């Protein structure tokens, strides 16, 4: 959309193999943590660009997915802590620049910050697409592959690594992390599951199961396993939930991935959005202007969110409660930005609005780290 070539950040991928030792597993889990976060800004951007009071079904779908991604991040952090690692969150390497290339994927998928619409949803589908055939590296069926083919395969590989290391080191030795670092359900519940501590092989495998089944569905069905894991209502996995919006129709209880959704219609009004520039940079907004100030403030608060998250993941689990007020402040800032016409007259003429740009630099994080929690 712009003359400049789009930036394409690439997250570092671990080598294509099953993790061989503790350090290797920690590196894989840090990559998983980074990956879970990669999708959050694009999902939030789609939510924040909806016109207030419109497209409520779509709003609640995206919101539910974002919350489950937060759950996944927290479970990965618990797992990483359980095996003696230290989650890294408040670091510029943790936050991708957008547009980014989706890692662990055979396909060339660009993940950008787009307004709610067909294009954004197609990206989300690509991110969450179930990968039924991808076995871990070394399996005869993937002998020809020389790299990752899907996110699902990556998680399956972590699972294989956890199993092998638990076998080799012994369960107690593998899960020797400090239990006080585990985030429990007190601060996160009722949103497509709840956080639980990871302290042994069983809870580690459950955590990995939650992450993959909420994303792509259980047992090759449309639905996740929230009913079995949390005693909650099962719901379509992320891929299928996004597909419901795109196809404007819900999945019924007997639908399968092959049949597609045949349930009740789901109303979407595609024009009830604030279109934005997916390549927007804060530098596009005139310095000293109100839009620029808000965009900078957004990034400052987002940096603060990451600092609070890191604190929650590295010894102060109770800090997790402070992420909610921060998220809600981001909601307000993003909403205000997305309703303001783009300051650039040419972009404004094309009907584009301002938007948050998620430029989380190390200097910004350093400032946030020195701020008090509130």
């Amino acid at each position, binding site marked *: 959309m712009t003359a400049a070539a789009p930036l394409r950040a690439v997250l570092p991928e671990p080598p294509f193999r099953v993790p061989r030792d503790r350090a290797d597993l920690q590196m894989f889990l840090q990559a998983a943590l980074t990956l879970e976060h990669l999708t959050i800004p694009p999902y939030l951007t789609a939510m924040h660009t909806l016109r*207030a009071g419109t497209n409520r079904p779509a709003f609640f779908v995206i919101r539910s997915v974002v919350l489950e991604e937060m759950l996944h991040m927290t479970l990965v952090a618990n797992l990483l802590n359980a095996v003696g690692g230290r989650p890294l969150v408040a670091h510029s390497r943790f936050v991708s620049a957008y547009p980014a290339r989706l890692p662990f994927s055979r396909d060339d998928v660009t993940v950008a910050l787009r307004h709610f619409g067909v294009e954004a949803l197609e990206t989300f589908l690509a991110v969450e697409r179930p990968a039924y055939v991808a076995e871990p590296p070394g399996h005869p069926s993937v002998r020809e592959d020389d790299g990752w083919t899907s996110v699902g395969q990556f998680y399956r590989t972590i699972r294989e690594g956890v199993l092998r290391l638990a076998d080799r080191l012994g369960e107690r030795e593998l899960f020797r992390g400090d239990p006080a670092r585990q985030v429990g359900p007190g601060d996160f519940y009722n949103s497509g599951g709840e956080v639980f501590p990871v302290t042994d092989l069983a809870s580690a495998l459950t955590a990995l199961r939650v992450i993959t089944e909420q994303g792509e569905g259980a047992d090759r069905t449309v639905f996740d396993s929230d009913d079995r894991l949390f005693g909650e209502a099962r719901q379509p996995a992320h891929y299928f939930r996004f597909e419901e919006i795109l196809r404007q129709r819900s999945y019924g209880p007997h639908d399968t991935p092959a049949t597609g959704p045949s349930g009740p219609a789901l109303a979407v009004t595609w024009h009830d959005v604030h279109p934005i520039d997916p390549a927007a940079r804060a530098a596009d907004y005139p310095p000293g202007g109100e839009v620029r100030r808000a965009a900078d403030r957004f990034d400052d608060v987002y940096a603060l969110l990451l600092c609070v998250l890191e604190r929650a993941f590295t010894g102060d689990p109770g800090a997790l409660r402070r992420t909610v*007020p921060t*998220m809600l402040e981001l909601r307000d800032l993003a909403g205000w930005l997305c309703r*303001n016409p783009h300051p650039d007259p040419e972009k404004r003429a094309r009907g584009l609005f301002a938007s948050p740009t998620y430029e989380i630099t190390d200097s910004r994080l350093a400032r946030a780290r020195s701020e008090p929690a509130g």
Partner: protein
Amino acid sequence: MDTQHPATTAHEPPGAPPECAGFVELSVRLTGFDEFDLRGTGMVRLYHDTTLEQLGRAAVGRFLDDLAAAGGDPGALADEVSRDIARAITHLWYLGVWPSLARATHAALGRGTPNTAFVVSPEAWTEGLAWRTFHGHPPGARPPGFGTWADPPPGTPDRAAGDVA
């Protein structure tokens, strides 16, 4: 205040001012909130249209002339009808509610609509500016998060010393 409806907001000629620029400019003077805040509500078009519907073009035109004559300062408006219009538009921004006009204003404008207050739309209530003047939020919308009510409100001396729930 522009009184023309563009067919769509999405394709304006390059260089055109933003939507309802005149209405936003006078609203800044009435409310004490800046353009970013006002546009951030998403209510500009709705309030612009509501004002025209409730008052008619002629009355709005006279109001704009009066405001210009007052040097853009609504506090200096001399004509009571224009002053009441200033009250109504400000009330609309602060609460999302179009108020009853003074009976004399209602009669002077010869309005055909009933002179009753109404909430312009559900979203208008959730975008009221009144709440922001004391760092609050409209009840039922824009919640600030669990336990935030334990914190001192922003900008108070208690803020720095405040403990976190």
